[in-house]
């Protein structure tokens, strides 16, 4: 019943639907909101990346840069059209410059319910020492 022509049309409309829901401005990636805090052992970064699963996450260190990228993976129905969209991209991207005192090789990352937690330890010899005051 379905002619090849019709198949093409359906696929195109499904793609358009997804684009209009999420990709109104395809080039711009979303800058995920972060909390960054430092303790004696290192720096912890938490980023809100809703819609990103482990497979869609790309976390890497390039030289002195920590690069966070993720792809939003939500199931949209075929031929769904956007009625309203706060989120207009399917990509997250943000980068940070790491300091020399941080051990980029020992970064630990965890992704849970759309929150990425990255722990970057400080080099052991550069951790703050408590200086005793002699009375």
């Amino acid at each position: 019943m379905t002619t090849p022509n019709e198949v093409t049309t359906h696929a195109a409309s499904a793609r358009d639907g997804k684009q209009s829901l999420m990709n109104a401005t395809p080039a711009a990636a979303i800058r995920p909101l972060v909390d960054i805090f430092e303790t004696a052992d290192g720096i912890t970064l938490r980023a809100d990346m809703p819609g990103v699963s482990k497979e869609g996450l790309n976390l890497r260190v390039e030289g002195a840069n920590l690069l966070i990228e993720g792809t939003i993976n939500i199931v949209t129905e075929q031929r769904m059209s956007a009625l309203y969209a706060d989120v207009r991209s399917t990509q997250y991207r943000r980068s940070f410059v790491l300091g020399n005192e941080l051990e980029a090789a020992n970064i630990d990352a965890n992704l849970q319910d759309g929150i990425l937690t990255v722990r970057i330890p400080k080099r052991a010899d550069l951790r703050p020492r408590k200086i005793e005051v002699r009375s």
Partner: protein
Amino acid sequence: MFGSMYSENPLLTQFRRLEEELDEVFGSNTPWGGGIRSLPPGTFPAINVGGTAENVTVYLFAPGIDAKKLDISIQRNLLTVSGEREVPRDNEATYYRQERFGGEFRRVISLPDDVDPDKVEASYRDGIVQITVGRRESAKPRQIAIR
């Protein structure tokens, strides 16, 4: 600390104005863009709404919430979602950035008039709450066969 510095950056202020102007041009032709219940950009959680002939789906970008404590209710075509996101702060730590939202939130979304409040399904995955509301049978487009 840095947040207040950046908000006074004149370049960013210009960008924000541009964004507002774009919203005015493109946002006003959606039912919610200029709607009386619309909220300023950046409000937690961000929302996308998509529709098909059969149903309307609302996506709430709410990472790290306890989905079981989420309060979702619908009255006619008004969908209300409220809950709380706990963002524990480490008092021992030095904070450089605190951009993430923590606390209670509530959003009211006015859906198209033809939704059926008896047909609602909700799920939570990877920090996104997905709420699907069916449209009323009578409102669905019907194919009319030519005899």
